[in-house]
């Protein structure tokens, strides 16, 4: 991987971090609001079913996480576990895809 790609990864990491800062703030506020008086599937679904606003929000949230987490983990496995080279990056790409698929499955699950 050349330094240009590594620079792009850094920019993607910081850009997704800025998006996530907003998403996480909204997410934390929603959680505190939602758990008052106990959670139920019906309550969650009544908020999200067919709501395009929440669909857009959670889609952006999931995709930002998909970008952010594997790049962060790249530093961790390199620096703490000494894992370098192409196999590491293939593994992290796989992780990104797993997060994207599972995340979008969940997002669509509460929308449809």
């Amino acid at each position, binding site marked *: 991987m050349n330094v240009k790609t590594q620079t792009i990864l850094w920019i993607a990491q910081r850009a997704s971090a800025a998006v996530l800062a907003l998403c996480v703030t909204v997410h934390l506020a929603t959680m505190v609001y939602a758990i008052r008086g106990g959670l139920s599937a019906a309550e969650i679904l009544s908020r999200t079913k067919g709501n395009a606003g929440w669909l857009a929000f959670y889609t952006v949230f999931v995709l930002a996480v998909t970008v952010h987490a594997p790049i962060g983990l790249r530093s961790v496995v*390199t620096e703490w576990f000494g894992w370098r080279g192409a196999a590491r990056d293939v593994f992290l790409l796989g992780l990104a895809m797993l997060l994207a698929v599972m995340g979008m499955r969940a997002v669509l699950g509460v929308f449809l």
Partner: protein
Amino acid sequence: MTHIQRVLDPTLAYRFACRVGMCGSCAMTVNGVARWTCRTHVDKVVKNDRMEIAPLRNLPVIRDLVTDMREFFDKWAKAKGQFSGRLTKNEDFQKVKPDSLERVAVDAGIECIGCAVCYSSCDVVSWNPDYLGPAALNRAWTLVKDERDSKKIERLRAVAGDAGCHSCHTHMSCTEHCPKQISPTAGIAGLKREVSLALFRKAL
């Protein structure tokens, strides 16, 4: 140190030259923290009547308290730490405004004397031996901001990526321990932004 060598153990090897904080050769690890031994009063650092003096971290030890600084300085060269001007001796001096934003940024980092306290304190250097380290990157930053220099893009290319500025995680140990009160973290953050700008302008 001199007392130990003269009185207690004449075989002790350690490095020093100026004794007044100018040469940068006497940095060691005192009670776990890298610092100049010349400007360190024992009563300021002694803990429970004990003081442990060790060689700098992150550098190979040659003998006793003497470390091999080759890698440290080789990384300055790798980060393109040499000034490369535009003018020849036939032209007049290039004038640099002392209060320009660029020059103020250079001034903040220029007083480095290469003692390797920052390099020795940096966790990323311990974790990733290829990492150029705070001193070399700080040097590159002072040249990137030097309007007389002509090699900006080559330098940005040299300091980008996993072995360069993008691996800094702002632990700020360099800034915390620099005896010259320089903040390499600030310079490295500047490099990250400059490299990104160069990439957006398709210059990288």
